């Protein structure tokens, strides 16, 4: 019900997947995000991935916290149940839902504020529990919904719309997850469908906790310093016009389909980010190599993307807790209640 035309999700044809569903069947309510918001691109990629994987929408549960990113669970798969919970606490709600019903596909959507500040502890412990879910961290370095405060992933020196520079070292969800023992760790960019969609499909296929750190620019507030084409620069001519509530309309940022291992992406403010996707030799099964690769890229001023680590042998929450294969919520009461005879016998042990 927003009045801003959204970049339409293209349907070359209304082609059907194996379930006889078209991509429309995987869409949701109209996005209320800013035009050009990276999060909308991620939503589009999710629609594509779920459609391609022939996943029945009603067998998927969409989980999120609070934030612009967290709102997006409403913008795809309207035939799925969704749970927009409280800020930073989506992981625990998902762990509980998954514990009760292991048969659904769980996709959690969060932001860098939701996951790295208020939600850091919960994300860390969902990783430790290896909850079987795809965890999308839509990372824009700011608190979008509350209008652009720095998040814990903001780069040092990055400047806010109010002009102050961030002083604190950013938290990198990828090295953090690798350190915490995550069993699937990947990174991509909201505009890089060619890379993002396959990674999403891999994450959905992974048995356990799959983290995808998606760089997803906030067109309204990710105002990096130094760039001559940044808001800071535009402000020179028009700051008084650009009131806090003015948000210029933008198109989503996307990268060419067939890029090499290093891609340079221009952001709206004119700054750029270098993405490095792993080459052929890269072994995604070695946690320490993955960590070193990501750090090496960081030191080169590059962002390592792609599927960086996977442990496909790890046991998930249910295996660690040895639960029955039937979802707990489907067990008939008769098989759960010991009954009066057992109680009678038990009572004797308290005498």
């Amino acid at each position, binding site marked *: 019900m927003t009045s801003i035309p959204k970049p339409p999700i293209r349907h070359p044809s209304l082609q059907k997947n194996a379930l006889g569903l078209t991509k429309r069947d995987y869409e949701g309510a109209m996005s209320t995000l800013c035009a050009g918001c990276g999060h909308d691109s991620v939503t589009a990629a999710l629609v594509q991935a779920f459609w391609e994987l022939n996943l029945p929408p*009603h067998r998927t549960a969409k989980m999120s916290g609070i934030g612009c990113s967290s709102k997006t669970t409403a913008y795809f798969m309207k035939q799925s149940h969704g749970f927009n919970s409280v800020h930073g606490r989506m992981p625990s709600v998902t762990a509980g839902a998954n*514990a009760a019903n292991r048969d659904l596909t769980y996709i959690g959507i969060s932001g860098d504020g939701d996951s790295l500040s208020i939600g850091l502890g919960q994300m860390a412990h969902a990783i430790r529990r290896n909850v079987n879910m795809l965890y999308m961290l839509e990372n824009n370095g700011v608190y979008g919904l509350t209008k652009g405060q720095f998040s814990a992933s903001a780069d040092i020196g990055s400047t806010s719309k109010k002009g102050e520079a961030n002083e604190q070292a950013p938290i990198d969800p990828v090295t953090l997850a690798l350190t915490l023992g995550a069993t699937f760790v990947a990174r991509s960019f909201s505009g890089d469908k060619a890379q993002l969609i396959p990674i999403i499909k891999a994450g959905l296929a992974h048995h356990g906790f799959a983290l995808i750190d998606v760089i997803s620019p906030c067109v309204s507030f990710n105002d990096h310093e130094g760039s001559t084409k940044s808001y800071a620069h535009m402000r020179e001519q028009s700051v008084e016009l650009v009131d806090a509530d003015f948000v210029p309309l933008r198109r989503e940022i996307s990268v060419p389909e067939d890029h090499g291992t290093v891609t340079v992406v221009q952001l709206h403010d004119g700054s750029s980010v270098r993405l490095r996707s792993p080459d052929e030799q890269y072994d995604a099964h070695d946690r320490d190599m993955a960590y070193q690769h990501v750090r090496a890229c960081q030191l080169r001023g590059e962002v390592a993307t792609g599927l960086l680590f996977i442990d496909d042998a790890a046991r998930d929450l249910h295996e660690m807790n040895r639960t029955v294969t039937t979802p707990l919520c489907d067990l008939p009461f008769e098989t759960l209640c010991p009954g009066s005879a057992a109680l009678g016998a038990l009572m004797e042990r308290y005498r």
Partner: protein
Amino acid sequence: MSGTNDFAFKIGTVNGTGSASANGLLMQAIFRMGIPVTGKNIFPSNIQGLPTWYEIRVSKDGYNARPPQIDLVVALNPSTYQKDVATVRPGGYLLYDSSWPMDPELARADITILGVPFGQMCIETFERDRDRTLLRNIAYVGALVALLQIDMQVVEQMLNEKFGKKKALLEANHTAIRLGYDHALTHLPCPLPFHLERMDKTSDCILIDGNTACALGAVYAGATVGAWYPITPSTSLMEAFKAFCQKYRADAESGLNKYCILQAEDELAAAGIAIGAGWMGARAFTNTSGPGISLMQEFIGLAYYTEIPAVFFDVQRCGPATGMPTRTQQADLLSLAYASHGDTKHIVLFPANPKECFEMSVTAFDLAERFQTPVFVASDLDIGMNDWMVPKFAWDDAYRPDRGKVLDAAALEQVQKFSRYVDADGDGIAARTLPGVGGKGAYFVRGSGHDKHAAYTEDSDAYQEVVDRIARKFEHAALAVPKPVLHLQDGSDVGVVTIGSCDGAVREAVDRLREQGIHVDLMRITAFPFGPEVREFLLRNGTTFVVEQNRDAQLRSLLAIETGAPRDTMIPILDYSGLPLTATNVVATVSQFLAEVPS
């Protein structure tokens, strides 16, 4: 008052020395002699080395409150001799370990001090340090067997049951018992004027604590997901749930678990897990204590507004902040009833003993699913961690869980359009669907403003329509929750209202008052929101006393808010010492008041 089968004794030791099992042995022996008995464990908040006490009350009339006085103290911890001597009622006895001399300064003319060299005897008799420490506890049990005429056969029988297979151990224990017993018989005035005689008043009873009972209730209610973060005094609830599940919830073929217990990273996560599981349609719960309730406030509000069932056990402890974690109190009443910011109100159940813990635990799961809302069981440390003598639990195999209004695939076929928050039946309860059902059943749960179709809204009317219905839902809940327990007397002089673990002490007080010719109408609150009976009782008795265990008269506040009974018609009788209530203070306040204001 003290006499045969009607007295109390208290054992003071150092925690971490293994006396708990010995004290349990004593309790159980008396219980098996058919004599009503209660025990109160008064322990410190550390693991080893601090003073700890165990109070045992024997009451042929079945009073289970803390005793008004202590007839005998067994003092085995020199660091508390002074306190212990002071505890003995005039004319009472103190038994201490005379292996090491006691400062004569401490002697009191009006009590009898008895000594037994427990430590020495054990050092002489046993080699290993650990045995010397541990069997000293069995030795004092032996002495008490002689002093109180506990049935030795019962005790030896229990030792056999315990150590039957372990000959050496059994030996050692029998030796230790005899050490104390023989020494007492030969050197002490056995039996003491107050002692035991077999009765037959415990045959259809058990000794059990409330946390175990809550856990058992959860198993019988069909709960499958338990999430928690350890905290005294609620920890043993989840430990019991796990033990019962291991016993009753292993799948016949696969041996896999028909339950999932998650130790969360904190209480916020524990609440989130329970809510996530409740949303999925599993019966889920979490157990905690005051600090956890504070941390769960945001999630509680979410479950209230999104209308998701979940059961929260609050085993209340003493004080604000960390307070005294090993002491009891009823001071979370306001925090629970109106938990979370914004307009909220919750169903809270108040068990008075382990038997009600078992029953209300089941009721809580039914109410949570029927009203699609978080339900609290407000127990406390006294109920939760002490062994109470209660009638055996019963179970009706015809029981089936009340899952509330849930539309499955078939039911969805019948409806034109599914709208999550529409009040179809006028009872304020809207039908829900469970994730995965498909068809028209999908909807979006959000803690943000939503209309009756569960769609996002910032429209005043659409928003109010939903919160107004939720308010209506609670009016219906007030009629569905357990009714207050009434003890009425004709020609009563005054009304008394109480709650939870105050029950025993207040009923004992009512008897004492009757002996003084004062007739009291008693109402024990068992649930919030209050049903009409509560208001009626308060209005009927012009002035009432409200007995509760907190500083700020929180129950009285709830009564004033919810029933409209004027605050000043309710006189608070408050105990927030952290120890279980005794009848004494209640009797005094009521009789004194009536003396002043002749009715």
